[in-house]
Each structure stands twice: as structure tokens, then as C-alpha cells.
């Protein structure tokens, strides 16, 4: 966030002869960046198409009309809906496991010491490596995808929750004790709200990871979803559709990240 503030706006501020402000850039520069990328994309496909005619199929001139066509096609939205549902289920599972485990890690030094190396070890294994085992154990279908997504997303949530507990203001806990709070009251009224900002940071990171893992996970053993749609487009030789799906995945991921940031900001604004 700080980089565009310091690099882009002073020049603009100087041009307009008033103090540099990030907002002064408006949507113009980001749009220019996107436009430039699209131009480069068009140029690259045009150059490649000289030798490999099929490359023209991947050009933005083909992809955007294909995207427009797909967006009004309920068939696509079924895939999008399924993918988003998997994101939601994976995230919910990761929260259900990560938050309690994170709290436990944060409050119990013994648990933290016992689990630390194991968690760091598991965290560094690409979730997709579990795919064959997940399919063998959970069967073909949604279950192994949920497992992979939850497994990928649980670490940032767990680690951020634990960090939040460790950073809890001791005086809040003292206050709770001075009010004779029960253990449940302390957790629900002090600990959980006190670590929510940290959990939301974890959620944001988790959504990013889930969205990245989702597409390859949906390429294995399922028959719907955005990952499946890409493979299906390839098999149908519908290359403009394939590019359109890639654009859509990027756009949806961008929206998801924005939603997570918005949630985080909203909570912090109150805090």
C-alpha cells in the first residue's frame, strides 16, 4: 500500500501543483496499467500467431467476447457457484479447526511447544501433494477438495489466532477476572473479540491461498467448478473460453480479496 503512495503520487501532485495525495490518482493509473497489459497480451498473441496460428485463439480480441458470452450463460454460473461454495466450506472448516487450535497454541505453552515443529512441517507441504491420499481416503467428489482447501487455509488462521492470543492485553484478562467472569465469558467476551482482527488477517491470507489451490484441486476428480471448466474448455478446443475462464478467476479472486480486506478494515475501524 505504501509503495504507490510514495512513488506514484508525488509526480502527480507536482503536476497538479498541490500536495500529493493517493486519491488524486483516481482510477486512471490502475486502468492504464490494465490496458497496457491487455495491449501486451494482444501483441504477444499476434506475434505468436504468425508461426502458430492457433495462438490467435488465445488473444484478448477472442477472450473478451467469449467472456461476455459466458457471463450470460447460466452454465458458467453453476461452475462459479460450486467453486465459491467450495471456498466457503473450505474456509469454514479451516476456521472451525484453526481458531480453537490457535487459541490453544496461544494459551498453552506446552501445546505450543509440542505442536510447533509439527505445524511448521505440515505447513510447508504443498496441499496438493495430499490429493491422491485424499481421494483414496475420502473418495471422488467434493470431500477431497474440501479437505485440500481446509488443509491449505488452516495454517494462516491458526498462526494468526495464536499471535492474537499472545498479544492480548493482559489488563483485559485482569478486568475479566476482577468481574468474576467465568471461563466461557472470558473467552466469548474478551478473548474472541480481542483476537478478531488477527483472525480476519488470517482469513484474508487463507482466502488467497484457497483461491489459488481451488483451481488445481478442481482439475482432479470433480466434474464441475472453475478448475474443471478450464480443462473442459481445453478438451472442447474452446480456447477463447479457456482464456475467459482465466480472466474470470482473476477477477473473482480480486473481489474475494477485496471483501476480506473490507471486513478487516470495518472491524479495525470500530477498534
Amino acid at each position, binding site marked *: 500500500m505504501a509503495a504507490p503512495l510514495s512513488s506514484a503520487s508525488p509526480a502527480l501532485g507536482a503536476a497538479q501543483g498541490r500536495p500529493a495525495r493517493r486519491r488524486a490518482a483516481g482510477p486512471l493509473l490502475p486502468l492504464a496499467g490494465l490496458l497496457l497489459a491487455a495491449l501486451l497480451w494482444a501483441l504477444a498473441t499476434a506475434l505468436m500467431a504468425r508461426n502458430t496460428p492457433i495462438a490467435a485463439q488465445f488473444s484478448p480480441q477472442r477472450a473478451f467476447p467469449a467472456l461476455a458470452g459466458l457471463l450470460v450463460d447460466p452454465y458458467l454460473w453453476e461452475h462459479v457457484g460450486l467453486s465459491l461454495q467450495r471456498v466457503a466450506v473450505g474456509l469454514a472448516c479451516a476456521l472451525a479447526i484453526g481458531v480453537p487450535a490457535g487459541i490453544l497454541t496461544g494459551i498453552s505453552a506446552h501445546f505450543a511447544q509440542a505442536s510447533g515443529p509439527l505445524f511448521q512441517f505440515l505447513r510447508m507441504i504443498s496441499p496438493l501433494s495430499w490429493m491422491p491420499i485424499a481421494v483414496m481416503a475420502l473418495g471422488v467428489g467434493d470431500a477431497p477438495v474440501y479437505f485440500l482447501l481446509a488443509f491449505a487455509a488452516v495454517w494462516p488462521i491458526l498462526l494468526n489466532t495464536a499471535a492474537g492470543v499472545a498479544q492480548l*492485553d493482559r*489488563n*483485559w484478562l*485482569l*478486568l*475479566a*477476572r*476482577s*468481574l*468474576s*467472569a*467465568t471461563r466461557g*465469558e472470558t473467552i466469548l*467476551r*474478551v478473548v474472541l*473479540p*480481542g483476537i*478478531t482482527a488477527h483472525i480476519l488477517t488470517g482469513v484474508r491470507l487463507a482466502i488467497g491461498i484457497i483461491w489459488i489451490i481451488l483451481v488445481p484441486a478442481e482439475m482432479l476428480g470433480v466434474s464441475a467448478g472453475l478448475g474443471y471448466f478450464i480443462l473442459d474448455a481445453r478438451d472442447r478446443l474452446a480456447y477463447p473460453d479457456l482464456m475467459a475462464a482465466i480472466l474470470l478467476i482473476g477477477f473473482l479472486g480480486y473481489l474475494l480479496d477485496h471483501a476480506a480486506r473490507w471486513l478487516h478494515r470495518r*472491524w479495525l475501524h*470500530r*477498534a
Partner: protein
Amino acid sequence: MTPAASQPRTLETAASASAETVLAGDSLSFAYADGSPVFSEVSLAIRRREIVCLLGGSGCGKSTLLRTLAGLERPAAGQVAFLGQPCSAPHPRSALVFQQASLLPWLNVADNVRFGLDFRHQPRIAAEARERRVAEAITAVGLAGRERAWPAELSGGQAQRVALARALAREPELLFADEPFSALDAITRAEMQALLVELVHRWHAAVLLVTHDIDEAILVADRILLMGSRPSRIHREWTVDIPHPREADAAAVTALRLSILGALRESTTGA
């Protein structure tokens, strides 16, 4: 000047005087986990509506003594009685104010003041009575109109006013205050000291105020207990009967101040 409050008070005498005594500590000792003693054989009693100042230098164990009396620390030896009943946990009729306001940043001013009133171990009060208490406490500390402000929007003095309101809303028999104003600037501190005296009189509460500030003790206290160095005990006790506002009687204040300074010198060099 009475000699040190070293004449041991038994629980029986405390109980027999329970109509007058809010809190009695009997032969209290406290040691850290490594065995080094903090204070030993401390006995004291606080009467209804009395403001008692526990005065001492940094690290003399006065905060630990307060926390022991408040039921937040378990003494190595001795007993605490609250309203004549032996008491080893924070009593519902006591309230605490710390050096930091320790407001919960996700709750607004009114919700911070309301915090804990509905906890399971607190006396049951009807919703209307609770709202009346909250409104009264907020008005009393001069923050009417700021009920919906977030803690982040408050100054240090305002935050401490909210903490005071949070304590008053519980209509405590006894208010424990651990250096509540030492983080404030001199002008705000003077305001808050006057406010504290006014409000505890209006709320008919007794106060145990821990402070290292001789002037604060003189301006606020009905009785001053001087704590010496480790293992500390109460060295001297003064009853202050200068009428409020005490700044008006400069001669009496100065005499008391010199007396305390002299005793302080004795306790640090002589003993």
C-alpha cells in the same frame, strides 16, 4: 501520628466490626514463585465510605498488596475478609480501576461501562436499572453525549473517566484503584483526583487507592498507610481530617507532607 499499624488485627475483631468494616486483611504475606518475599504480616482494615491511600515507592509491593486484597492474588499466608466474609476471589461488590484504562477497543463508551454487569457471578439487576446505572455513571464522569464514541477516539483522561464510570456502574462497596492517574498529565490528574473524591462520596463507596504520589495521597485520602521496602509492611499511618478541598489549607497540607517525607526517609534508611 499513630505508630505502624502493626498491632495484629484478628478476623474476629474484623468480623465484629463488620458493620463498619468493608475489607479486612489479616496478617497477609506474599512471596514470588522463587520464594523472595514481597510483603509479610500486613494487616489493615477499610471502613465504609473511607478513602485509604496505600503510599509507597516503586517496587515496594503495594500493587501486589492491592491485588491480594482484591482477590486477584492468593496470599502465602493470612486472610482477606470482605464485609465480614472470608474472601479469596474478586468480590462482586468491589470494582477495580488500573493505571491503564484498559477499555475494550471493540466496544463503545456505553458498552464499556456496561461490560460485566450481566456476567453470571454478578448480582442480577433488571435491564432498566442497568441502563440507568450506566447512564448515571457516564453523566457523573462528565461524558454524557459521548456514549457512542470508540475508545480510540478518547484522550487518556477521558479513557480513565470511562474506566471510573465502568467501576461506578457496579455500585461497588469498595473501589480498588491501582495508580489510576499516574499515566495522566498533571492537570488532568488534578481534575481526576477531585472527581474521584466527589464521586466516591456520592456513590457511598470506600476506596483503596495505591499511589506513589505523596500529594495525591494528601489531597484524596481519609487515611494514609505508608509502605516501606521489601519485605515490606505498613510503617506508618496517618488519619487526614483536613476538609476538602484540601488545597485551601496550605499549612495543614504542608505539615502532613513533611511528616510523611520524614517517615519515608526513616523507612528507607533506618530500617
